[in-house]
């Protein structure tokens, strides 16, 4: 049934936005981490979203083509090395290089906060879509009562 599929699509959206929130939380928590297991400062994580056809049920397979036209969404978290690291002069710091500079993570807190707000709004939009589908199912159960 289309409405349950619609709920699954919204659920995939919720899941994806939670992934985005995870990446942002990681970045914020590590905004000042100058030491990691791999060595060097923490490197920003980035959530990459992509449309994905959801696993089909038999009726959808029968009607074909439906899924490509209304995909769900999937999220992957990858390391973002495209940004430059900031450096501060702090010779007393245990992670300072020989020149006295400490390499900071390439995290911009303001940017992360803005992304956080966008992700939360997106999450809410998906909740609304989910509730709309649920409301439609409940309403249609009233037919013939």
């Amino acid at each position, binding site marked *: *049934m*289309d*409405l349950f*599929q*619609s*709920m699954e*699509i*919204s659920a*995939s*959206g919720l899941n*994806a*936005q939670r992934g*985005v929130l995870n990446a942002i939380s990681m970045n914020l928590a590590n905004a000042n981490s100058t030491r990691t297991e791999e060595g060097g400062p923490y490197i920003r994580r980035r959530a990459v*979203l*992509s*449309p994905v056809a959801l696993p089909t049920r038999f009726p959808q397979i029968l*009607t074909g083509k439906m899924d490509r*036209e*209304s*995909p*769900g*969404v999937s999220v992957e978290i990858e390391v973002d090395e495209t940004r430059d690291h900031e450096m501060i002069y702090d010779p007393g710091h245990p992670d300072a290089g020989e020149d006295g500079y400490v390499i900071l993570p390439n995290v911009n807190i303001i940017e992360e906060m803005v992304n956080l707000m*966008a*992700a939360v*709004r*997106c999450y809410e*939009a*998906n909740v*609304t*879509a*989910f509730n*709309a*589908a649920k*409301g*439609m199912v409940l*309403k*249609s159960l*009233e*037919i*013939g*009562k």
Partner: protein
Amino acid sequence: MNVLGKKIFDRTQDLLQRSMDIRTSRQRVLSSNIANSETPDFAPRDIPFEKIMERTIALQSAIGLKRTHEKHLPGGFPSEIDTEKSGEAVNIDQEMAKLAENNLRFQADVQALIRKLEGLKYAIEGGK
């Protein structure tokens, strides 16, 4: 449906049913747009409700197809509900507005169907 059935359940029911079908499909497509609102290079899609409904009504008012052979496929509404591209990027406000509209109109369809059946029930019970 036989002749008697056609008389009890008139074409309004068929149209309402069709309308609800389209609205559930549209809900699916709009959910997908909202889920993908942050996905790069995602083009939103939509279902042109009016266009499909017009086609349905045109088909319905055309002279009903008679099956002259039992192995012929029955005539009726095309079951496919096609989607079309509705823009280059997702506009979340627009999608939310469409979602709300679609949802309310679906509820209206259901309500109309319920009233229709209530009327039928009233008649069956002899206006009790």
